[in-house]
């Protein structure tokens, strides 16, 4: 038997019709996640052609991108940013009702960002293909699924056929050697990896994250890492499921009834000894410190203890101009006006715990706005049960309703032009968090420490208690 990679095993399990030169493979989709932004035009195509959704049971919808994070008024009216946003959410409600698709709506305590709800409900499982009209679908690869983002035309394909035309991507293994140092998180690991291989460095590849540092990661941290695969250009990122995965999924609503049998099967999903990859890269984890970005692409990242590097080219100069940065300035001297903690990258309970550890008993610096948005209703409930909301509110931060919020700034939550925002989300593109907003990507601990300090700050002294 030839040795196979994790990716090849999952690919083969889900191929319906193999690839030919002039036709891509057809892949069966095991879970299709749907949200309001990238689905309406796909449902319209089904309607025009009189097609019903083929497998509503393998489809799960939520509302997250355009939804307000401020509560409804006394009369029940939700503070939508625009009429269009409201219409978009209402369109999703109608489409799901028409096709019998389960929708986690405002009345459902399972609602949340699409990449949180799949795992929370036990629907994101090892060995299946998971797609969604959203590039951060790579998140679900943390469970050993092949998970990737698709466009709206393909959303229509999956709704209609539960399958997709797909060419087999190349494979790359990233070997993480060493161990994470204290105060350094999966977010820092991911930003360091992206800085090393570049924003387009994994274009055309499915990544497998491996090595002792990966095995040591908890499930939520694995999701953070896989989430950011797309920021290196990868089609998907995967981690072989192991005991950590099986323990995390056990008992969740969507998992197979005979769970032990499922675990037995899932245990086969790992890269065989001697299997070959198209490319391999090694990342030295010992050397990674808390990271911040300084440009307008996620690969412009460096340790928070360093200075803004000398611009390598014209593009970097332009980025510095947009960001208002000078070469050789210490990152810790850069003043900030806002922080955002949340998103499908860092909006989970462990993220909020870490931010709370930094903020406990401290105050957000005057003039800084701190927005904390749990990624899902479940996270919100769990965080409140632990009293994290109180820690944030006492520190002077805002505690909002779940949603994508300032990650994409579609729902009215946004920064003002020129503001420096330390954000736990995934993209520092120009204007992503509002026109003219200067985004610095970082971990929840770094964002929280920066809110307290009023400038970009290394979270480690706050975590050890050295800082005031």
């Amino acid at each position: 038997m030839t040795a196979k990679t994790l990716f090849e095993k999952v690919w083969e399990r889900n191929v319906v019709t193999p690839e030919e030169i002039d036709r891509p493979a057809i892949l069966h989709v095991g879970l299709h996640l749907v949200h309001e932004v990238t689905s309406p035009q796909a449902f319209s195509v089904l309607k025009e052609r009189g097609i019903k959704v083929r497998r509503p049971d393998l489809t799960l919808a939520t509302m997250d991108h355009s939804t307000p994070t401020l509560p409804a008024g006394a009369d029940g009216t939700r503070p939508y940013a625009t009429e269009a946003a409201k219409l978009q959410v209402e369109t999703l409600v109608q489409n799901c009702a028409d096709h019998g698709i389960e929708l986690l709506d405002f009345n459902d305590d399972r609602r949340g960002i699409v990449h949180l709800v799949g795992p929370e409900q036990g629907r994101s499982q090892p060995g299946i293909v998971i797609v969604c009209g959203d590039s951060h679908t790579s998140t679900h690869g943390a469970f050993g699924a092949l998970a990737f983002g698709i466009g709206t035309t393909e959303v229509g394909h999956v709704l209609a056929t539960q399958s997709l035309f797909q060419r087999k991507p190349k494979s790359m293994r990233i070997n993480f050697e060493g161990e994470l140092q204290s105060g350094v998180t999966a977010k820092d690991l991911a930003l360091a990896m992206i800085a090393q291989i570049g924003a387009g460095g994994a274009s055309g590849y499915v990544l497998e994250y491996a090595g002792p540092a990966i095995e040591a990661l908890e499930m939520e941290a694995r999701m953070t890492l896989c989430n950011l695969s797309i920021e290196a250009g990868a089609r998907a990122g995967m981690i072989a499921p192991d005991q950590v995965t099986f323990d995390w999924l056990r008992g969740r609503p969507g998992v197979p009834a005979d769970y032990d049998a499922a675990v037995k099967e899932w245990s086969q999903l790992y890269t065989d000894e001697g299997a070959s990859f198209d490319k391999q890269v090694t990342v030295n984890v010992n050397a990674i410190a808390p990271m911040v970005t300084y440009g307008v692409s996620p690969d412009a990242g460096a340790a928070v203890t360093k200075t803004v590097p000398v611009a390598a080219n014209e593009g970097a100069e332009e980025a510095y101009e947009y960001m208002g940065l000078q070469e050789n300035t210490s990152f810790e001297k850069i003043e900030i006006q806002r922080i955002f903690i949340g998103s499908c990258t860092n909006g989970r309970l462990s993220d909020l715990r870490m931010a709370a550890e930094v903020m406990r008993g401290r105050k957000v610096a005057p003039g800084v706005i701190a927005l904390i948005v749990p990624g899902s209703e479940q996270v919100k409930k769990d965080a409140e049960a632990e009293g994290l909301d109180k820690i944030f509110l006492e520190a002077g931060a805002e505690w909002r309703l779940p949603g994508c919020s300032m990650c994409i700034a579609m729902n009215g939550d946004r920064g003002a032009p020129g503001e420096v925002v330390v954000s736990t989300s995934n993209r520092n593109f120009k204007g992503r968090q509002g026109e003219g907003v200067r985004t610095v990507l970082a971990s929840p601990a770094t964002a929280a420490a920066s809110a307290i300090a009023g400038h970009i700050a290394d979270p480690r002294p706050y975590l050890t208690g050295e800082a005031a």
Partner: protein
Amino acid sequence: MSMKPFQTLTSKTLVLTQTDIDTDQIIPARFLTTTSREGLADKAFHDWRFDADGQEKSDNPFKGIDMSTHRILVGGDNFGCGSSREHAPWALKALGVEVVISTKIADIFRSNSLKNSLLTVEVPKDIHDLLLDHPGQEVTVDLEAEELRFGNHVVPFSTDPFARRSMLEGQDSLGMLLQAVPDIEK
């Protein structure tokens, strides 16, 4: 629902030299609250073209350019990275762009573009540099022959054979998938 076939196009180039032009630049997220594919021409590269008051910016790279004669967009390295929004190719097409050329085109953007008859072409660095240096260059893009022709240059490129055939014939990918899918209930 077939798409408009694409075979050959001769047009001038519009050059955007920036690298890593992401889909948030191509169409900012705040315009994604639409439920239709229409009306996106004004939204394409909106924040490069207009300021917060909706006035045209002085450094708008599209300023004074007749899109009907400039249907080929040449972008810096790694074009189309970022979100999976198909609104990006929809907006470019609405603006009048038929072909995007770069050294590297991001995966999802390429896949979305080809499904909307927006051809993406990857070229080697030396050819890319030439095109970047000569905005307004007239280029012939021949999908049948998989060639770019301009000046004395004939530059081969490759396209996924399936996507190429779909574009040449204007085929409907959903129809093909519906036909091809056997019973796959697992």
